[in-house]
């Protein structure tokens, strides 16, 4: 049981929670995630990135978008209530070193998992350029936090309500065309966005890391449900990842696998909205 210490609503569908988890707060590194469950008998296990941690206070920060059954139920919980099960830190931490110039690209909720990585890249001495994208001003999260880290911050929205009116791939391409070009790109967001970021950097041979958000069950390498094709190999996102070389990931297959339970989820979402499941 892990107590929620603090809850904040960041946008219409995005929430921040600070949760008690002293051992995880102490061990976690940038790029790692947890799996949580709201009921140990019938609840589903969902992965969320550790967006931040405070080892002294014994808390970790989760930032999530209410998209389906479990995240919507979680969004209804409040400070003081307890999450039934929370396990981690899972996954292989991000490889952090001084690469030189690192472009961090975050789309939508992807800005949350990007934050600890940008922070660690900065701490390792990199020049950090951050590109943040969202559909509109309302949906933009962690702007201040990212501004505090970035040597340069570029904001893009689909409707131009703040920053440039374009997709994140546009400034990314401009940066790749500069001389010297960036030494590394890190892209986290919806799979389609990551796919196009990887396509953007490919002609310039800028190494591009992506963080994959496949469907998971155990998160320890036991089930293979999270597997993706990377190059010619099958990899398990929960233990081999979540980060991979974006130029090698078969995004189309991954996007397909994410839709495995569309039918069942559409049904359970409605149940959630009728509010009979709390």
């Amino acid at each position: 049981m892990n107590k929620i210490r603090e809850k904040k609503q960041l946008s219409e569908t995005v929430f921040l929670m600070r949760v008690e988890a002293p051992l995880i707060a102490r061990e976690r590194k940038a790029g790692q995630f947890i799996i949580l469950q709201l009921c140990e008998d019938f609840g589903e296990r969902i992965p969320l990135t550790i967006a931040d941690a405070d080892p002294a206070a014994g808390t970790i920060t989760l930032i999530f978008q209410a998209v389906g059954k479990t995240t919507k139920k979680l969004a209804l919980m409040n400070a003081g209530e307890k999450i039934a099960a929370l396990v981690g830190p899972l996954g292989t931490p991000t490889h952090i070193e001084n690469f030189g110039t690192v472009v961090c690209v975050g789309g939508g909720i992807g800005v949350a998992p990007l934050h600890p990585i940008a922070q660690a890249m900065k701490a390792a001495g990199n020049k950090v350029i951050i590109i943040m994208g969202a559909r509109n001003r309302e949906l933009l999260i962690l702007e201040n936090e990212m501004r505090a880290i970035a040597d340069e911050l570029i904001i893009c929205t689909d409707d131009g309500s703040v920053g440039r009116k374009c997709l994140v791939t546009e400034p990314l391409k401009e940066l790749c065309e500069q001389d010297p070009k960036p030494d590394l790109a890190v892209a986290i967001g919806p799979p389609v966005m990551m796919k196009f970021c990887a396509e953007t950097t490919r002609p310039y041979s800028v190494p591009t890391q992506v963080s994959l958000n496949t469907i998971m069950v155990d998160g320890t390498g036991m089930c293979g449900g999270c597997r993706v094709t990377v190059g010619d190999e099958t990899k398990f996102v929960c233990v081999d990842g979540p980060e991979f070389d974006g130029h090698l990931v078969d995004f189309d297959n991954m996007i397909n696998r994410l839709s495995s339970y569309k039918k069942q989820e559409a049904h359970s979402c409605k149940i959630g909205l009728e509010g009979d499941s709390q």
Partner: protein
Amino acid sequence: MTHLSPEQLAQAAIRTLEKTSETLTPKERMAIPAQEMPTQDPAERRSNMNEVALGYSPEQARAEALRCLQCKTAPCIAGCPVGIDIPGFIQAIADGDNKKAIDIIKIDSLLPAVCGRVCPQETQCQAPCTVGKVLKSVDKAVNIGRLERYVADWERENRLIEIPAIKPDTGKKVGIIGTGPAGLTVAADIRREGHDVTLFEAFHKPGGVMVYGIPEFRLPKAIVQQEIDALTAMGCELKTNFVIGRTRKIQDLLDEDGFDALFIGTGAGLPRFMNIEGENLVGVYSANEYLTRSNLMRAYDKQRADTPIFDSEKVAVLGGGNVAMDAARTAVRLGAKEVHLIYRRTEVEMPARVEEVHHAKEEGVIFHMLENPKRILSDEKGWVNGIECLRYELGEPDDSGRRRPIAIEGSEFEIDLDTVIVAIGNDSNPLIRQTTPGLETNKWGNIVADENGKSSIDRIYAGGDIVLGAATVILAMGEGRKAAAAMNEMLANI
């Protein structure tokens, strides 16, 4: 074969007992018919998760016990990996003393209700049984496992299970990683000596494969839970949602958290795939994932569970072991109209328990022997819509002594499907190995341990599937007992 109801089987046993005299000659004993296990009607059980085998009636148990010849040499004992005094406990059942029977079993086995259900008896204790030999069929051997289950269930149902006596506190602390049969056994044996015991489990529920892999219809979860409850009643501490190697590392437990010794029983939880085309399509599962979704996450209970599972119409299960049978029979229960089990050798070579194969056939699983998939086919959206297979024939024996299957060129054919479940085995999970410098493993990634279960690092022991490779519940338990004995001795001397 027509299905006989439990009542019919119980009545038959009563009639048999009426005909038997007080003193039986060996010939008369062997004339007593082997008692069939009462089961749920196949037509009914196809659509429920309840246990299939219902257990002997008291009369059946007595009739079966009377079949035992009480052989002086007792070859059956040598067939049991933990050496239970089989004639001893069977005699007690014949004498009507169930309490004595279960006490005899418990000298050597801590999980009789589980092993009585899932042991591959036909290759272990029942294989060398004299009765089976004389009657020229292992199927006619004394049904030792069923009798073991009978007394274990009798003890539980009559609430006679006692918490073992615990010796005074020693102040020493032992950590046990993994709560499968190996870990649970070690916990009980070490706690009894008065040591402090903490169990760590990665999942939210303890029990290992007994809970996430083996389905309810073969091993009810309540039976495993009772073993866990006994451990907590003994004062063992249980930490679920705790991944060793991630939440804490082995070295931290020893150096910082004050553990005097550790036992690693993390099982063989890394699914193998076949590396054929189409294996990552939507609709392809590992058996581990399929079974975990259904069992542990209870996806079969569609009304209540949040975890989804495919609504499959036509399923292929690839493999021929217990895992494959469990996956196939689960698919039947989840509503699949056709379930094909595809195995590249013949039924004789199939490693699954005979009883499981028999039950799967009764439930309508379609067996394809000497066939093997070449690639998995999909529609234009990347969803499975079929499988292409090759026919095989048996050639010369290979290293394992089994005749090697050889593909028949040009024999390709297709089956229409929407789901494929890969059940070709498990390797060991690398997490502990990768995070514990100095821990020796072999080329398959299994932890190397000596005959006492001691690993290459002092104070760290290991046992069960993580040492043996994917094996059995009884072997995991047996290894656990050996390791616990060595650990208790080591702890007494520090």
